[in-house]
């Protein structure tokens, strides 16, 4: 019988666990959700057809982004919030962790699997958009660099959000984890406004709070590219690299915290 070296076992285990997450998502037909996306897209295109052609293009781009964002977020919540708690509750985790696998490896495998499913969903949603353009359903709307960039940044955004949700699902009940993560996600989208309001106050405490929040919560507004999609602003390679590093740093931070919390968890 041939066994792999410990390093190869760890890497192999990440891939096996990730594959299991993807297999579960496919067999449970979670990705059918993107069919609803296609339907929403068609309804939207129909809804804006009465506007002038130039406005139509802008509206289609803007609404497409909003619809992709919504379904991406919904999918992230659906595939992430039960990943760890369900393994613990059903005790399937016993058969994994009684093997030479660290808890960190387990979580990394889960996260990789979630990202693959999300990547797959983004690709399918992008594909549906391409198909609609090809069929002439979305008049004047073209899939260009901005659209691809927007989808890429959405994926980065959902990577950090999924890791945050995974962390919270380890330390809190499922409903609470979902609510808290959505709260933080929402805060991440209004943090510019909040930052400006709190920093402008006379208090010395509020600016400090903003500083701390900036360290532990991503400013998701930075990763939003609707303006890029609508007004054709495009990020250069350097900006893409910086924003990628920014988003990944939060993903890594949440993963480290999740690992720490999971190590302490009594199974």
């Amino acid at each position, binding site marked *: *019988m*041939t*066994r*792999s070296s*410990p390093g*190869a*076992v760890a890497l*192999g*285990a990440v891939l*096996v*666990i990730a*594959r*299991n997450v993807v*297999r*579960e998502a496919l*067999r*449970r037909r979670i990705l059918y959700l993107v069919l609803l996306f296609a339907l929403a897209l068609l309804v939207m295109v129909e809804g804006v057809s009465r506007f002038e052609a130039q406005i139509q293009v802008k509206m289609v781009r803007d609404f497409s982004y909003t619809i992709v964002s919504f379904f991406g977020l919904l999918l992230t919540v659906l595939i992430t919030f039960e990943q760890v708690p369900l393994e613990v509750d*059903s*005790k*399937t985790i*016993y*058969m*994994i*962790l*009684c*093997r*030479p*696998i*660290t808890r960190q490896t387990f979580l990394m495998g889960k996260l990789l699997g979630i990202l693959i499913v999300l990547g797959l969903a983004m690709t399918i949603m992008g594909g549906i958009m391409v198909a609609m353009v090809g069929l002439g359903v979305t008049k004047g709307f073209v899939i260009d660099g901005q659209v691809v960039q927007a989808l890429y940044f959405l994926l980065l955004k959902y990577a950090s959000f999924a890791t945050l949700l995974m962390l919270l699902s380890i330390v809190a009940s499922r409903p609470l984890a979902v609510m808290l993560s959505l709260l933080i996600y929402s805060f991440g989208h209004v943090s510019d406004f909040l930052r400006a309001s709190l920093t402008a106050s006379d208090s010395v405490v509020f600016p400090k709070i903003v500083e701390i929040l900036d360290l532990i919560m991503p400013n998701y507004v930075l990763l939003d590219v609707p303006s890029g999609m609508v007004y054709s602003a495009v990020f250069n390679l350097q900006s893409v690299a910086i924003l990628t590093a920014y988003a990944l740093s939060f993903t890594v931070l949440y993963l480290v915290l999740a690992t720490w919390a999971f190590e302490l968890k*009594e*199974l």
Partner: protein
Amino acid sequence: MENATRSSSEPPALTIERLTKTYSKGGHGGLFGRRRRTITVVDDVSIEIRPGEVFGFLGLNGAGKTTTLKMVLGLIRPTAGRVFLFGHDAFRPESRSRIGFAPERTAFYDYLTTRETLETLGRLSGLDRESLAERIPRLLATVALVGEENTQVKDFSKGMQQRLGIAQSMLADPDLLIFDEPTTGLDPFGRRIFKDLVRDLKQAGKTVFFSSHQLPDVQEICDRVGVIHRGKMIHVGLVRELIQGGNTLEEWFMRLLGEVDPSVKIQGQERRFV
């Protein structure tokens, strides 16, 4: 069964040193009815299992058996004490490369087939494709699940799932097998399979450590037993010595518990059911 021993230089398969686990639980009383109290679930337990030995871990429900097993597997951390697997700290993941474990209520991914389940778990044990292709049919034959390779595990009966649980524990050909209540939910056929399997494992020089309530089975296949009661290890001894004089292990077990804890004493003669 004879007590198997190997070279004295070989470290024990399992060493449990003064293991203690306490939990803080919410109770009644206090301003908000949440005054915490400390419960000792496992209390200063020590056991040493020699390589090649079949050891039965006995106790009533809630005695601390599963908690002890969980600490052995690194699933929960002890409040005090240490566990070694073949001389290595049990909390290091690599120490688990020589063990196999089947939990009491074996749970599987219901969307996977039998083969996919064993392949997935085998890969997590570091086995390559060739090894798995060779091992899986043999293991399925051992637990009488031949022909069920492509059946989804959710369609299995409880007993079949239990047998699959035993099969997955042997995937990596481990030297120490740990079973938590392995015969719970098994019909007489399944129990026979398990007992034959343990005998074969012992023949092959493997060590088996399992908790059970099925005392006739334990009497049949174990070299030694340890009894845990209210978290404390109250007896460790050779089965053949405990059943001397025509006693069954069950009679000895109930007598022992009655001696240490009058609340579980059975007054057989006075009991009337009709």
